[in-house]
């Protein structure tokens, strides 16, 4: 896997995006607001996923991801081009999610994939499993939740997560280990289906 990766790219998996990101950022800084659309298109799915796993609520996740994009646009001038754009925007998103949590908005989640409408018992069981996993993620303290979410739903490396969260890679690794231990305890007895 090459080092410079973006994830959940709609077509064909991972792409090297740093150069594209920087070019788009440059266009935005030059006053071409529409250039930001390509950035939104590129990152909307992964940012929404991170927000959803952090917050467990579609509406709150959508708001947090939208706010993250808008804030990123407003603060583009402060973006240090020697760093990766996606690390920077993830940091903004994680802060948004933490703010949402602090606001104390009740998190009444909507289940992922009501696409299971009319499907048999397997789908129901899978839905239950997903709900329990999501509940276990939400029960983690924030410092563990953010690393497990960034690691699993963005495929960032330890170094990239560290860059996004302003943590040494070693700390990321150790928090990730603890997070998984806690999840393993919380989800004991729950088996995934291949």
């Amino acid at each position, binding site marked *: 896997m090459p080092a410079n990766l973006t994830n959940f790219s709609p077509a064909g998996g991972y792409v090297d995006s740093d150069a594209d990101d920087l070019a788009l950022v440059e266009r935005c800084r030059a006053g071409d607001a529409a250039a930001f*659309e390509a950035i939104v298109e590129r990152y909307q799915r992964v940012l929404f996923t991170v927000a959803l796993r952090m917050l467990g609520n*579609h509406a709150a996740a959508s708001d947090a991801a939208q706010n993250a994009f808008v804030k990123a646009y407003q603060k583009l001038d402060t973006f240090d081009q020697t760093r990766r754009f996606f690390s920077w925007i993830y940091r903004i998103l994680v802060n948004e999610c933490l703010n949402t949590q602090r606001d104390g908005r009740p998190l009444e989640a909507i289940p992922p994939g*009501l696409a*299971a409408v009319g499907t048999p018992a397997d789908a129901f069981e899978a839905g*239950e499993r997903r709900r329990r996993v999501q509940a276990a993620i939400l029960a983690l303290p924030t410092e563990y939740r953010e690393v497990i979410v960034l690691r699993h739903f963005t495929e960032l490396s330890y170094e990239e997560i560290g860059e996004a969260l302003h943590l040494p890679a070693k700390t990321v690794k150790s928090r990730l280990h603890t997070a998984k231990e806690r999840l393993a305890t919380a989800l004991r007895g729950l088996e995934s289906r291949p």
Partner: protein
Amino acid sequence: MTEFDPHPDVSRLLDELGPADPPPGFARNVMARILDEHHAASKKTVRFNREERAMTRKVMWGLATAAAITLAVFAIKGFPPVGRGTEGTVGAAQKYQAPQIADKDVVLGDSAVQEFLQSDTFERVMKDVDARALLADASVRSALEDAELRKAIEDPDIRASLTSAELRSAFANADLRRALDSAELRRAYDAEFRKAYDVEMRKSGGDPSLRQAVDDAALRRAAADAALRRAVSDSAVRQAVGEAALRRAVEDPAARASLADANFRKAIENAAVRKALSNDEFRAAMAQSRADAAMRSAALARAIGNPAFGAAIRSAQMRNMLAK
């Protein structure tokens, strides 16, 4: 990745959650907010320049009129001798003339509106940048002319719902609007939800560990799924809403949220709120970054609740004050 994973089961369970798609129209909403701000910033510059030019013109006219009056007075009464103590005369004439010119620009409304616009209540709105920005939007002012909408948004939950991405996304689609507009669907959904919730409660009540892990919110979600599935099978609902709109409602997370969330439901039960949300420009205004803060503003809520607000929102004077 070749590193050792001590908890492969946990990793598999996490993988099973997978990525999630943002609600339909997500990118469009983000860009609408960004482009709004971009244009607002440009307009602000243009407006400032216009105001600056207008002010310069006013000052010039003021000075010219003052000079003319002073000359006329001097011509009739004779020019005063130049000496100590007379240096401030022209300045005094300018000060006297300036309010006369400013008065020409004031459009007077009825006394209740005047009183409201000069009240502390409205002054607080003028000092609240978020509330002021929201009211400066023509589509918002137009929507707030509706007394029913003003009454509905006295409820803070409804105010908060108006800026929700979920609700805006649902109302952006004609099929979903038709579904959410349907009292038949909402009624059937509620009836089915109550039944399904009881079933889910009983089901999870037998398994304490499951109950602990999923909590009440999860029960509600499961019940909401079941309720929607059953409600869309109802023949009266199918007839009222139509297959395509129902299919869309079942597939769309924003529509599901609109039906399941108690606050959203409060909002969409109100016809005036549904009408406002059906307007593209109103939704775009609610997507602006300041709308959320504005809708939480106590100053705005108090102002909207004032009996004179309905007349004031229609007045040119209020529009002009907000535009300054």
